[in-house]
């Protein structure tokens, strides 16, 4: 998303230097590449998604409302949003620590740690799902230990949060890392030389600079969590009674029952949610670019 605003900046520079419109067709291939881009985007992404929207909007409003207010759907949406929110918060804390450690400190095994952060991107979600579910079950390594403390993780909301934390951690680390790399330690040194305590320096000098990146990482992890399916459905147990069904699971369940109206109605709510999130992420980054652009 950062690159979207990068584009914008490049555009502005180009306009300012007065070579924007005049030679915009100097390089050949505009029609061809644009045609390919638009055609493939429409056929593979936009038209199929539009089919969902069309079906949803053709539904009688009463039926639509009835589906969304049914207990299982309300709970599933609530559980998806709240567990993703908590997991994204956990990821902001640990993502910040990890990014800090990876950028600011030198220690043996740092490159391996850096590579391992990427694991959740590379491991298939279903594999992560069954593995976590086993680990945190009553017979699993972590499940047994936590069981002694009276904590049940598998088949509870806690389990969903564990899976979503696993999935979301790279988003925060990989958004904060580059910003931290650019942040000059000079400001922190100045702050501490002026007598600020380390925590004051961190809260007043470092954190404000990182806030947009943290918010972006939070948003990406949150968005991914709301739509997550593979890593969650095994550890959650999908019980309607314990309210451990997530929204994606409900869509899939309705599809299996051939209940296309139900699936589409829930999907529409999720689409709206993710577009709102995407929109606010773009706003944050636009703001950030304006700020740094002026400086």
């Amino acid at each position, binding site marked *: 998303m950062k*690159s979207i605003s990068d*584009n*914008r900046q*490049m*555009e502005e520079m*180009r306009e300012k230097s007065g070579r924007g*419109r005049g030679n915009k067709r100097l*390089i*050949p*291939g*505009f029609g061809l*590449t*644009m045609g390919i*881009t638009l055609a*493939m*985007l429409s056929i*593979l992404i936009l*038209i199929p*998604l539009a*089919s*969902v929207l069309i079906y949803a909007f053709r539904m009688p409003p009463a039926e639509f409302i009835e589906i969304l207010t049914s207990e299982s759907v309300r709970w599933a949406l609530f559980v998806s949003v709240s567990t993703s929110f908590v997991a994204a918060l956990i990821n902001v804390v640990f993502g910040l*620590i*990890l990014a800090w450690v990876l950028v600011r400190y030198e220690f043996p*095994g740092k490159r391996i740690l850096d*590579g*391992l*952060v990427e694991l959740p991107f*590379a*491991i*298939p979600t*279903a*594999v992560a799902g*069954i*593995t976590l579910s*086993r*680990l945190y079950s009553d017979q699993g390594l972590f499940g047994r230990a936590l069981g002694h403390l009276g904590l049940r993780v598998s088949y509870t909301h806690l389990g969903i949060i564990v899976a979503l934390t*696993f999935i979301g*951690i790279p*988003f925060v*680390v*990989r958004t904060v890392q*580059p*910003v931290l790399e650019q942040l000059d330690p000079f400001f922190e040194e100045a702050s501490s030389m002026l007598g600020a305590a*380390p925590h004051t320096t961190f809260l007043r000098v470092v954190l404000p600079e990182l806030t947009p990146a943290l918010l*972006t*990482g939070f948003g*990406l992890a949150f968005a991914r969590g709301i739509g997550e*399916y*593979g890593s969650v459905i*095994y550890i959650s147990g999908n019980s309607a009674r314990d309210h451990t069904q997530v*929204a*994606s699971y409900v*869509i*899939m369940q309705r599809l299996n029952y051939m209940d*296309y109206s139900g*699936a*589409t109605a829930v*999907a529409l709510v*999720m689409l709206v949610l993710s577009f709102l*999130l995407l929109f606010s992420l773009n706003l944050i980054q636009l703001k950030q670019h304006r700020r740094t652009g002026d400086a």
Partner: protein
Amino acid sequence: MRKRQGIRIFLILMSVLFVATMLVVPLISVIVGSLRQGVAFYIQAISTDTVRSALRVTLIATMAALVVNTFFGLAAAWALTRFSFRGKQVLSALIDIPFSISPVIAGLAFLMTFGRLGWAAPIVDRINVLFHTNIKIVFAIPGVVLATIFVTFPFISRELIPVLNARGRDEEEAAALMGASGWNIFRRVTLPGIKWPLLYGMILCLARALGEFGAVHALSKTRGGTFTLPLEIDALYLSGGADSVTASFAVSSLLVMMAVIVLVLRSLIEHRSGRRGQKKRTESETGEI
């Protein structure tokens, strides 16, 4: 100073502990789980007919996604970075849509297009009657391929666009002024400069395509026919018996090994292309996957 050192050690320990418990232990437990019933069982578990069929479908879908998305990625990156036009931001955001929506919705989208209720189903039927073919999309291989392409669609263009933007258009413009054709400019000027990011994007696309589950789950119902490896893992795991759970971990270990290879390749390419340094300059890394 001593206090600083304390914070430093504390933070490093926290990081290592977090990564170890959240990421490394699960990884190891897949391998341990897969070998619970011995090596002979492992080999038998990964060579059943359904696993072979699933491997074949997975490879078909992954190759298709790789080819289609590379082609699209190059075209989109060229169009979005080599020209100025209105609505560029909107187009760029539209390409990113698959990043932000649930894979299950991707599956649903193709069901609503080509499925029983889909508006395109009669068109496919008519084509089948006209040409005496028997093309099926949903619950067949084409559906699996389409879903895989959908979820990995922006991977390559996302890697190329920031790099091409950072490189600027001057070299291409010079080549065009000297009369080079579009294809020649692309092949001789642009491509050499983006070969590492291109490879990087292709590896990301490969990793995601191999492991895609949610989107494919909605569109594939026949085990041994249209199932991919992740679906086979799901089927084995849910069938419940201790043997089949071990078998599902055995099949999982195949995908985990592929994932580890992908990670190693990634860091090699990062090293080769000096991506770390580049990142500082272009802010290209965002972690959008």
